[in-house]
């Protein structure tokens, strides 16, 4: 009898080409996504006088630097140069490009799944930590740095050591108004921002199975905020239904054959994990972050910590510094924290379901603060417009923009001004993440909408009364 295997074991063994004595393995990479920020890697490849190994498995998607107001030419010369340089690198290496003017353009981690490029059972890499998103499909997907991007360009392989395995089980049923983002933040608060360091995570349990593909992407996306190398949800009928008919997914007979193979990508019943964590999904409330790391996350009816009540001096020091940066008095109720603006977007929460969730709260209401809505892809944008969601955002007073990483990382010019407080659907509340001196509170799209109409952090649940969420 073979040893029972986890999903992680199965995906690893199907891609291992070489195993060295010290544990390093050469693994095959099925998909490689590159973006404007990948320029160091192209330079490294050129410096070696090498060419791309598998252009057909490499896809370029412009997202990090693209302006979300598509005036041409791009006003900022440095940003224009980044986009141009990317287009030139893609052309030179014969890489299919979803560029600025492509109707399929969007955020890498939205476009890959949307186009059916991301499939179960694949190894997927990209020079971006949130590549873990693609694990929602049962793919082994992880972020890498520029040197590794260069290695994949030149060889379509990577030297990796198999990570330890961790299973996070969330059972029960999430309450109305509680979504994938709340589950993700609850997990991060529970294990800590480096709690899953060195581990590949498999998410399982009823509450995870109950999530849509969009929800699973949000969850796997934030594996990295728990310190994990990657996150995986085993594929099921929802996964297959999502992929069927997508432009780059297997078609006709090959699709049925693929589903047969994909159906085996589950952890065997007796497979053992290096670590097991479980949470009660029914006990999770809408969550917001208050501090400067993603594990500073609390249910919305709570209050921020008071350093004076903290016994551990190192922790008390951290609390003082975080509250000072965030300009929040110790012990303040979360719902008393006034905000200056909102942002709905990013690879975490910018898919159609996210926009619908925010619009369900905003419909017929007005935002008390300015805000930006950047759909995850140009495709999502068109779909939202067909559904009339753009009208709801505009009528509420928010700006409806084009697709890109935008105000999550702030390198395309969309930033939160210094000292301003933003309720954001993004993934990192680090100091200065959304711009120097910016103060970020992470939460779900519905909770951002609730904050917008309240002008402060707010519980979305009463605002959903009598509405279809």
């Amino acid at each position: 009898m073979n040893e029972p295997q986890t999903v992680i074991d199965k995906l690893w063994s199907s891609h291992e080409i070489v195993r060295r004595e010290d544990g390093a393995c050469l693994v095959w990479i099925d998909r490689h996504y590159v973006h404007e920020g990948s320029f160091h890697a192209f330079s490294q490849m050129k410096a070696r006088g090498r060419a791309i190994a598998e252009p057909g498995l490499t896809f370029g998607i412009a997202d990090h630097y693209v302006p979300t107001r598509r005036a041409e030419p791009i006003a900022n010369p440095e940003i224009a140069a980044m986009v141009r340089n990317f287009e030139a690198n893609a052309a030179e290496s014969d890489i299919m490009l979803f560029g600025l003017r492509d109707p399929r353009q969007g955020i890498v981690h939205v476009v890959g799944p949307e186009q059916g490029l991301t499939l179960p059972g694949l190894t997927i890499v990209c020079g971006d930590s949130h590549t873990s998103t693609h694990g929602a499909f049962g793919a082994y997907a992880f972020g890498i740095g520029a040197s590794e991007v260069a290695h994949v360009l030149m060889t379509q392989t990577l030297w990796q050591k198999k990570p330890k395995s961790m299973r996070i089980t969330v059972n029960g049923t999430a309450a109305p108004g509680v979504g994938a983002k709340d589950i993700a933040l609850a997990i991060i608060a529970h294990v800590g921002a480096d709690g899953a360091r060195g581990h590949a995570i498999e998410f399982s349990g009823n509450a995870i199975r109950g999530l849509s593909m969009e929800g699973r992407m949000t969850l796997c996306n934030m594996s990295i905020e728990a310190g994990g190398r990657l996150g995986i949800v085993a594929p099921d009928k929802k996964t297959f239904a999502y992929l069927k008919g997508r432009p780059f997914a297997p078609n006709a007979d090959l699709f049925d054959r693929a589903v047969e193979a994909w159906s085996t990508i589950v952890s065997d019943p007796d497979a053992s994990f290096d670590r097991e964590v479980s949470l009660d999904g029914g006990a999770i409330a809408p969550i917001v972050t208050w501090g400067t790391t993603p594990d500073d996350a609390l249910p919305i009816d709570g209050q921020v910590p008071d350093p004076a009540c903290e016994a551990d001096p190192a922790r008390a020091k951290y609390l003082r510094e975080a509250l000072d940066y965030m300009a929040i008095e110790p012990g303040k109720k979360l719902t008393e924290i006034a905000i200056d603006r909102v942002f709905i977007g990013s690879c975490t929460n910018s898919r159609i379901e996210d926009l619908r969730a925010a619009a369900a709260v905003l419909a017929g209401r007005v935002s008390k603060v300015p805000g930006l809505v950047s759909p995850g892809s140009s495709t999502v944008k068109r779909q939202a417009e067909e559904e009339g969601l753009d009208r709801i955002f505009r009528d509420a007073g928010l700006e409806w923009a084009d697709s890109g990483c935008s105000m999550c990382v702030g390198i395309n010019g969309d930033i939160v001004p210094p000292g301003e407080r933003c309720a954001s659907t993004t993934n990192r509340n680090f100091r200065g993440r959304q711009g120097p001196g910016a103060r970020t509170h992470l939460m779900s799209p519905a909770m951002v909408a609730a904050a917008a109409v309240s002008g402060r952090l707010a519980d979305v649940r009463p605002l959903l009364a009598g509405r279809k969420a």
Partner: protein
Amino acid sequence: MEKFGQLSAKACPLMLPNLNTDQILPARYLKWPRSKGLGSVLFQDLRLDGNGNEREDFLLNQPSWHGCKILLAGRNFGGGSSREAAVYALCDHGFRCIVAPSFGDIFAQNAVKNGLLTAVVSEGDIAEIAAVVSRDPERPVLVNLVQQVIVCGNRTYAFDIDPVSRNQLVNGWDDVDLTENYRERISKFRAGDEIQRPWAAPAKSRRKS
């Protein structure tokens, strides 16, 4: 890649926990080419105050720590974004070794590819080392990768590093060169895999076999 044997240098006890890559190198410098050198903007938003003046209380601004090649940091150093430019900024500033109780996974991978040693020591040990160098900044700290020890004052501390990373640093291995030795194995895998998993190729692929 240059081999890493041992290093004797000044060590700066920065000691802050959770210094993620956004703190090491703010995103607005990510478009700088490597040739420009990123050392001058390392820890930019921690190093400068709101008016762009150097903060006196930030250790790397103090003359005592000029020329240090070892950084002593708190736990979870380099978490967050996969930006390898965070490693470039540390290297360009002159660092050869970061000592911390733990590192972000992607950061640690990026570090080794650039010859930067990430040495893991316990919270207690690093506090002792930091205390010694805080009293005497000029005292060199010795890091020996072959023996996996740090010598500071009259004490020797063992450190952890992933054996794969250790091998790569000690031997100065270059991944791309190593992979060259396996060209045939890769081709064989690729051919077999195409038969095994025909569905794995993108349907609209322009891939020619």
